[in-house]
């Protein structure tokens, strides 16, 4: 392993001229970013990109919620509304949540395993810079004849084949996003396997690193399947194949099978790194080691494995024999077991701990409660007989927003608050952070809780207009959404102030006696850390 570390170091030499800069500090101006190979620079770019996408996707969500504030058609035509739901989902999933976690991985994984950088810095640069290209292509479709894709982010044929000129651009941008994710995942795995400081065995790795290792394998397994599915859409449309066209002997339902074979693991790709983040934060603020570290690893691995055999719970209504329904129902419910193990372990970590409630901890606690609500509604959806009623209703919208917003996104925000002082060398404004937390938590519930009732009462998803009995809950949800959106401006303000070094100086450990190698380097973390493999000493022990 020592040789692997020196190996990766050798990359520096290949870069010839850059070599000098590389060891003394960043290049100046735009070159630093365009030619970036430093894991911290690339991590920063991922996070900034993700933040930008979060606001673009969020603006689209506000268009949706404004239209749904009252029944009738107010602001946008139905076709524009459908473009908004489709683009909102694509941008949030592939542009905001996934890149944010890759950004955190870039920043933190090398620092948590005592590596000098990511294993493949050149590829790292590519996997980031493909993303702005992919999303420029995707968003340019908003201005094309026929408009942006409007058939839903799930891209079901035959509807998606009616997309106008945007169609090939949609497919190409999905290909690019997949390429970026796969390259990022390969980088993460090679870094974790080959570049750990020699004293860190696999089971001694921090949970964030573990969950990312599992996530990266999921990405490599399923992103290519998505690429295959959209390629088939492309050939069906332009090259005369009939994979999904009934007239030519194909079957549109097959697309759903292939899509969800990707899609369900994808939802775990979006939550496992958040599990990792919370597993880092709760021990720090409970001042106790993570309860059941190894069982957490096994739980995450079994979640990843099970996520491959539950996909058809998204398609109970397409017509499936009873045995199939039962299999997918029970397999889905089985996932609740390892998920329950995790929730139990987090709770046990806090048990009798000396807890304090700084912003990262608050976000982690809200994660724990609200993600669990999303897990419960997921269990309700897993029951075939009830899913047949709930499917494609606002209940599903409530479910996945509970797991994604106070789940994945709160996980990301908790991570940002937790590590920001290490990145910038300054504390963020704790008071404002807590205000941001409370506003976000209140508004997220005001937005998404009423959607459960709407769904149970029968309001379908993806509609621009609704009958009048749904008005009250929709208005409440819209008010919550606007509140949530505005609250996030506060987040930007807090982060920007911290980056501009407006807070007090952060110490090297930042928090009280946190565990992990990242706290053994100075704050702000120097441009190059761990050029020599560190000892996994007492200060960085993982029990």
């Amino acid at each position, binding site marked *: *392993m020592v040789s*692997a570390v020196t*190996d*990766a170091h050798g990359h520096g030499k290949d870069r010839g001229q850059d070599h000098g800069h590389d060891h003394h500090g960043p290049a100046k101006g735009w070159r630093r970013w365009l030619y970036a190979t430093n894991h911290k620079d690339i991590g920063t770019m991922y996070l900034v990109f993700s933040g930008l996408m979060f606001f673009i996707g969020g603006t689209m969500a506000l268009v949706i919620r404004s239209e749904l504030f009252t029944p009738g058609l107010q602001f946008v035509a139905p*076709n524009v509304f459908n473009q908004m739901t489709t683009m909102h989902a694509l941008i949030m999933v592939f542009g905001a949540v996934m890149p944010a976690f890759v950004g955190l991985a870039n920043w933190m994984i090398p620092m948590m395993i005592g590596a000098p950088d990511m*294993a*493949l810095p050149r*590829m790292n640069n590519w996997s980031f810079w493909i993303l702005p290209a992919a999303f420029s292509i995707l968003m340019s479709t908003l201005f094309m004849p*026929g*408009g942006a894709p*409007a058939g839903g982010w799930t891209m079901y044929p*035959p509807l998606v*084949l*009616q*997309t*106008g000129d945007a169609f090939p651009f949609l497919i190409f941008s999905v290909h690019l996003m997949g390429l970026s994710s*796969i390259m990022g*995942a*390969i*980088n993460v*795995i*090679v870094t974790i*396997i*080959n*570049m750990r400081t020699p004293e860190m065995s696999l089971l001694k790795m921090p949970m964030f690193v573990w969950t990312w290792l599992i996530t990266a394998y999921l990405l*490599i*397994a*399923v*992103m*290519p*399947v*998505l*690429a*295959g*599915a959209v*390629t*088939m859409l492309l050939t069906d*449309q332009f090259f005369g194949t009939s*994979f999904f*066209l*009934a*007239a*030519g*002997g194909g*079957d549109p*339902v*097959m697309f759903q*099978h*292939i899509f969800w*074979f*990707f899609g369900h693991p994808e939802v775990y790709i979006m939550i496992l790194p958040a599990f990792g983040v919370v597993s880092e934060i709760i021990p720090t603020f409970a001042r106790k080691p993570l309860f059941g570290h190894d069982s957490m690893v096994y739980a995450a691995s079994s979640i990843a494995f099970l996520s491959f055999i539950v996909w058809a719970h998204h398609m109970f209504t397409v*017509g*499936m*024999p009873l045995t*199939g329904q039962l299999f997918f129902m029970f397999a889905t419910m089985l996932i609740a077991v390892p998920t329950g193990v995790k929730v139990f372990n987090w709770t046990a970590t806090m048990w009798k701990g000396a807890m304090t409630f700084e912003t990262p901890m608050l976000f982690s606690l809200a994660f724990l409660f609200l993600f669990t609500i999303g897990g419960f509604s997921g269990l309700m959806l897993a029951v075939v007989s009830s899913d047949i009623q709930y499917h494609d209703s606002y209940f599903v919208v409530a479910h996945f927003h509970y797991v994604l917003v106070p789940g994945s996104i709160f996980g990301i925000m908790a991570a940002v608050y937790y590590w920001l002082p290490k990145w910038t060398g300054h504390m963020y404004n704790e008071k404002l952070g807590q205000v941001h937390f409370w506003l976000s938590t209140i508004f997220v519930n005001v937005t998404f809780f009423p959607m459960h009732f709407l769904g149970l009462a029968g309001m379908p998803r993806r509609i621009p207009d609704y009958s009048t009995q749904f008005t009250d809950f929709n208005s409440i949800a819209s008010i919550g959404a606007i509140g949530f959106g505005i609250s996030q401006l506060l987040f930007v303000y807090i982060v920007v102030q911290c980056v501009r070094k407006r807070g007090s100086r952060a110490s090297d450990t930042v928090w009280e006696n946190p565990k992990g190698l990242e706290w053994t380097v100075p704050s702000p973390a120097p441009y190059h850390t761990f050029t020599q493999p560190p000892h996994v000493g007492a200060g960085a022990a993982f029990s």
Partner: protein
Amino acid sequence: MPGANSLALRLLAMALGMFGFGFLVLPPLYSVFCEITGLGGKTNQTAAVVAEAPDQGRSVKLEFVTAVNAYAPWEFHAGSDGMEITPGALYDTTFVAKNLANRSKIAQAVPSVAPQQAAKYFKKLECFCFTTQEFAAGEVKQMPVRFIVDSDLPAHIDTITLSYTFFDTERVSDASADLSHETAHERHSIH
């Protein structure tokens, strides 16, 4: 432990393998799976050879459903409302279609049977769905189906629905030329 590059290459191979799995392996696997199990209500797509063995004393209701896929310019219906059949006996029935376009068109009918468990017992000896059907402008066609419902049909099934959907074999983009001005306009606004 493998070096960084060889591990990266192995992971890349894994990704390419999964692409191949999704793109090349899954679709044929899916068809074979559906064919063997009769899932998806798929019935035989080429003529079956079955001997008659009527199960006297048992009667099953057969219903017909016809549909025309979006934008396909046909009128399409069953020759009768439905029929009472005896499993194991041979029957003939007809479907009728009219080409509403002012040029010749080629259709493909896609059959489906509900409940799905009945699909593999519904054996077609002759069907207009085995091949494409060419229609001259405005042509009306009587199209026969000859079938046997296997007498092994599970006892709890007392009603079978046979449905056909008519598809235009031309792609959506070409087919829209046949639509009236208003519908073409409507289609555009769906975008």
